[in-house]
């Protein structure tokens, strides 16, 4: 491992600069948001010890931040990045997916050439020639209580935690319309597979039965029958949390509560872009990573972060029944092309195409609420 000290570039100054309307246009006090706003952003790049600018994925766990880049896996402990690459046994330098086993603390690392397990500092590698991994191109990893599930370019692999044996699931033995698995996520009872060009398939883990969810209209930009199922058959990511399945696609986002589907598109909701690469969920709130910024929502209230011309950024906040508010922020994400996110109680870590970003979360009281208490007001957009 190589070590480099971290120097945080970003301004330490308080950053949510102001200026948004701190009261709804109607004159009524604005409702409190169901999620915290990001107060300021800090940046990490090669100067701080990251091995590359391009960051594909990030995972904050128990005081460590694991960062998957195009030139290896970096781990931030305290103020130092340690780097694990092919020289340390990683199967490839391009890290695409991260998942931690809550029972053992082992870290599972997907790359563009194989899967790795990091356990007690040792790297163990699984490839399609050395194990039952369906394909070396790993797009997503999820850890269940008795198995690790891996989405690959040629199906889903399941590695039994007890025996180490592998099972393969693809279009020949499940309801998958195509063999390409692009995402996996787990609820306590079910496995959800995001299938490229096949929507989502679900496996009942106890019974082993499969169910398929497809976009009924099969259209790209037009959602001819809104809220009728997945937003698209191209599933780019899937995340289950607190009873909600979020589907990401390159045509928008869908939310499934087990009974009803709800679709969100750029032109019909505050979603900043239809191109969605990743969704991190905490509680019932989704942190949606797009090519043009970060959108946070519970399906009713929204906040979108983007960079602004001339430096800094903006956050646009939309509450039910009120016009959007736009505020300038003194700091912004490293890049608006956001590829991954990991949320903790106090911060959000963002993987972007040009650096790692740490977002410091405001207390669970947003600026509008603070303004209401102090009686200040800003101008509307």
């Amino acid at each position, binding site marked *: 491992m190589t070590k480099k000290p971290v120097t945080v570039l970003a301004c330490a100054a308080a950053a949510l600069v102001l200026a948004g309307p701190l009261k709804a246009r109607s004159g009524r006090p604005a409702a409190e948001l169901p999620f915290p706003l990001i107060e300021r952003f800090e940046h990490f790049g090669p100067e701080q010890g990251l091995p590359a600018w391009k960051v594909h994925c990030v995972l904050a766990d128990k005081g460590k931040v694991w960062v998957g880049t195009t030139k290896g896996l970096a781990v931030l402990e305290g103020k130092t990045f340690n780097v694990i690459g092919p020289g340390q046994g990683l199967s490839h330098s391009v890290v695409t997916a991260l998942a931690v086993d809550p029972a053992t603390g082992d870290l599972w690392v997907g790359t*563009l050439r194989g899967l790795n397990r990091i356990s007690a500092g040792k790297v163990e590698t699984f490839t399609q020639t050395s194990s039952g991994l369906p394909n070396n191109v790993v797009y997503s990893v999820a850890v269940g209580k008795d198995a690790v599930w891996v989405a690959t370019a040629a199906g889903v692999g399941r590695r039994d935690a007890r025996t180490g044996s592998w099972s393969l699931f693809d279009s020949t033995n499940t309801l998958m319309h195509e063999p*390409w698995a692009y995402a996996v996520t787990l609820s306590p009872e079910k496995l959800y597979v995001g299938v*490229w060009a096949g929507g989502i398939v679900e496996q009942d883990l106890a019974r082993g039965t499969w169910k398929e969810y497809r976009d009924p209209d099969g259209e790209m930009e037009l959602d001819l029958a809104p809220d009728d199922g997945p937003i698209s058959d*191209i599933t780019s990511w899937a995340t289950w949390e607190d009873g909600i399945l979020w589907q990401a696609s390159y045509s928008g986002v869908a939310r499934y509560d087990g009974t009803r589907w709800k679709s969100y598109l750029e032109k019909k909701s505050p979603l900043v872009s239809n191109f969605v690469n990743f969704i991190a969920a905490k509680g019932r709130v989704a942190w949606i990573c797009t090519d043009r910024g970060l959108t946070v929502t519970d399906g009713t209230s929204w906040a979108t972060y983007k960079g602004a011309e001339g430096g800094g950024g903006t956050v646009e906040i939309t509450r039910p029944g009120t016009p959007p508010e736009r505020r300038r922020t003194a700091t912004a994400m490293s890049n608006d092309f956001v590829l991954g996110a990991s949320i903790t109680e106090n911060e959000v870590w963002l993987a972007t195409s040009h650096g790692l970003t740490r977002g410091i979360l405001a207390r669970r009281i947003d600026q509008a609420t603070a303004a209401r208490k102090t009686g200040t007001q800003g101008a509307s957009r």
Partner: protein
Amino acid sequence: MIRPVLSVLAAAALLFGAPAACAADGPSLVVGLLLPPDEPEAVSIRQGTLAAAEEANEGPGPRVKVAVRGRMGAWGSDASEAALLVMDDGAGALIAPPSGAASHLVLQVSGRTGVPVASLCPDASVTRASIPWMVRVAPSTLDEARALFEGAAASRWLVFVPAGRAGREASRDLSAAAAAAAGKRSIERSVETDGSVTGAALRDLVFSVHPDAVLIWLDPVPAGRLARSLRMAGFAGSLAGPMRLASPAFAAEAGSSAEGLFVPVVAPEGDGVRAAFESRYRRLFGAAPGPAAAIANDAAKLLFDALKRGGAEGARRGFPPAERIRGATGLLAFDRNGNRLVTLQVRRYRDGHLVRG
């Protein structure tokens, strides 16, 4: 046993081993080309791309080169090779091959990495992926089939498609094209084949469907074989096929059975670009380019242009280009979903040559 192995190795060397157009010094902008070994037009596509690299290196700006990969050996995978084009070869943009399955593998890599893609695949499903920095340079199956359905005066069609996923996607697109075509066109039956159906089985099929026309949606060699079998089985109606049958490989395989067969072609622009490409291609490779080479040349030209303008990161943001570029197959313009906007004309084989219908 040794001879087939040597043949495979020779073919692999032709496709992947020969050095691509490389810069003499300094870092180059790289376009990655995924070419599965079973791609029938692999040589034409590779050569069309290399011709574009040579042309790009004659102009100002950074040098360019082409990286070519395809699965190798029993354990090879096109998915891995598509990923490695970007990650190990440094490709800042990718060309996806005509195969729908391989094209989707390239798109999956593009979705995660953000590299622009020019696809040679005619399947409608390719642009349905909705990747903003992807275009389809080849005319779609929908466009080709609609031109044929409207150009050939036939209402009852029997269709032959490849087996498996390729046939499934083609059948879906052909049905949509028949429904959208002006006039009453119906696909009476769609049959999956490798082109080897012959004799009594073929006669029975034609007799039971009783089509006015047969659409042979296969690669050139199996399509030529099937055209011969259909004529030998006594079918006297119209034959038609996709643009890739406008090739010497099809004409040679079909022989006199190609006579009268309809194919769509891109309407010529008469701006000299096509002639310049043909001249360069003949000088480099000693043969006339087919449609696959011309389309690959245009795909590479688009990507080299985007990389030269904006580098790898800028290429994504500026792709597809707002302005229209003149290519060997005409003006390169796209709709907002990345589909090529193209005018097709229907031609017929007469004495081994394509003439206006």
